[in-house]
Every structure is written in structure tokens, then in C-alpha cells.
């Protein structure tokens, strides 16, 4: 499936009166961005280990490059991961409509940033990631 389709689910529930649906929206927003980015880098030859640590490995890779846009996307992924973990594990916290809307829009904006990376820039990013010890 196309991970971008997660955004449609996130959009459907981001303003829901049901908090469980809003928490679902946060998770889908994060996973849409995560899966698109990791899928694109994998397709370019970056190796991931297919473990839960790939979430932080992806952030580490992006934020160690010299590309400003890749860094911004990496930082967004890291913060959105904390939002997703809170949504899925912290039942005592309240997840508001505006927080859910923010997470959705932030993920969408970060995806647009990632999509704006030119093929030449992407080749440089991949080269830099592959040079990380």
C-alpha cells in the first residue's frame, strides 16, 4: 500500500469528538511520514534493520547529514514519534483537537519538505548516510 494513504485516515479523525479516534489520527500522521521517508531511502540503497530501532535510526541518519531539509524532516520525525508514543501509551493525558490538528499538519508539511528534495540532493543525502560509521 501507499503510506501516504495513512494521511486520509489521519484527516478523517483529526477533528473527531472521540479521543480514541484523535489518538488514531496522530498515529497515522506519524506513520505516513515515517513510512514514506524510510521507504524512499531504502529504495535508494540505505539499509535499515527492520526493527523498532529503525525509527530512531532514521532520525539519526537524517539529522547527521549536511542537508538542511533532511535535518528538518528528521527533527519533525523525532518530535512526531514522541507525540505518537504519548497517543498510544499515555492514557492519563488528554489529546486535544488542536494538538491533533497540529500533528497532522506538521507531518503533512514535513512530507512536503521531503518531497521537495531534488534527485541530486537526495543522492547527496544517501551518500552522506552511507558514510556514517
Amino acid at each position, binding site marked *: 500500500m501507499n503510506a501516504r494513504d495513512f494521511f486520509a485516515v489521519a484527516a478523517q479523525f483529526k477533528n473527531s469528538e472521540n479521543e480514541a479516534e484523535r489518538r488514531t489520527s496522530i498515529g497515522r500522521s506519524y506513520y505516513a511520514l515515517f513510512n514514506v521517508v524510510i521507504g524512499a531511502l531504502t529504495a535508494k540503497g540505505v539499509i535499515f534493520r527492520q526493527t523498532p530501532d529503525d525509527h*530512531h535510526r532514521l532520525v539519526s541518519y537524517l539529522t*547527521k547529514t549536511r542537508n538542511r531539509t533532511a*535535518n528538518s524532516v528528521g527533527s519533525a520525525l*523525532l518530535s512526531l514519534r*514522541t507525540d505518537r508514543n*504519548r497517543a498510544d*501509551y499515555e492514557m492519563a493525558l488528554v489529546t486535544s483537537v488542536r*494538538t491533533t490538528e497540529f500533528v497532522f499538519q506538521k507531518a503533512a508539511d514535513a512530507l512536503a519538505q521531503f518531497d521537495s528534495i531534488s534527485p541530486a540532493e537526495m543522492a547527496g543525502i544517501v551518500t552522506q548516510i552511507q558514510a556514517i560509521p
Partner: protein
Amino acid sequence: MSTENLVLKATHSAGNIPSSSVVNVSAEAERYAREHSLLDSLIVVKSLILRDAAFIKSVDVDLVRDPEAEAGFVICFSIQTIASVPDILEFDKGLRNSFFDAISADERASFAVRFDFD
């Protein structure tokens, strides 16, 4: 001067901080920052956040661990805000851009910034 006082000093030197702003750094976050030589960057991140503090109600700085990952301790700045979603989206994008200039590449993945809206 304790680390927390150093952090708070940095907070107050950032300027344009409304009297209602409250910054809380947990002992765990402070200890982790000290043990991993992240204290300077923690203060830088705090200063970057408080550069435009008019919309900030409070900031909690905690050490958070990804419950699904072996690795993944992160110092997380949780900002309670009174601003609009579009305003915070713009601020957040600028903040991430500032990270690139102000935080070393090896330390950027140690800091997360998230927002809660009233």
C-alpha cells in the same frame, strides 16, 4: 550554580519572556544531559524556544524513552501554548531550521520539541 539555575539563567537572559512563562527541567533530563555532555545544547535549545516566548504558557523538559525501541532516550521539550495552530507550525519550522545551525549533528537527535494546545 546548579545546572537548573544555569538553565533558568539562560531562560531569563533570552528576553521577551512573559512573567507567566514557567520552565521545568526534570532531574532525569538534567542528569542525562550532564552524563551525555548535552547540557550546553539543552540550554541552546531552551534559548531558541524562548526567543519568541509570547505564546508559551509553560515548558516541561523531560527525559523520555521510546517504549518500543532499545535505543531512543530523548530530551523532550513539551510546550504548552496559547497560540494558534498555524502560528505554532511556522514557529516549529523555524525552530527546526535553527537546530541545523545551532546544534551539532551528533546531538540533534537527542532533542525533541512538541506542543500541547489549550
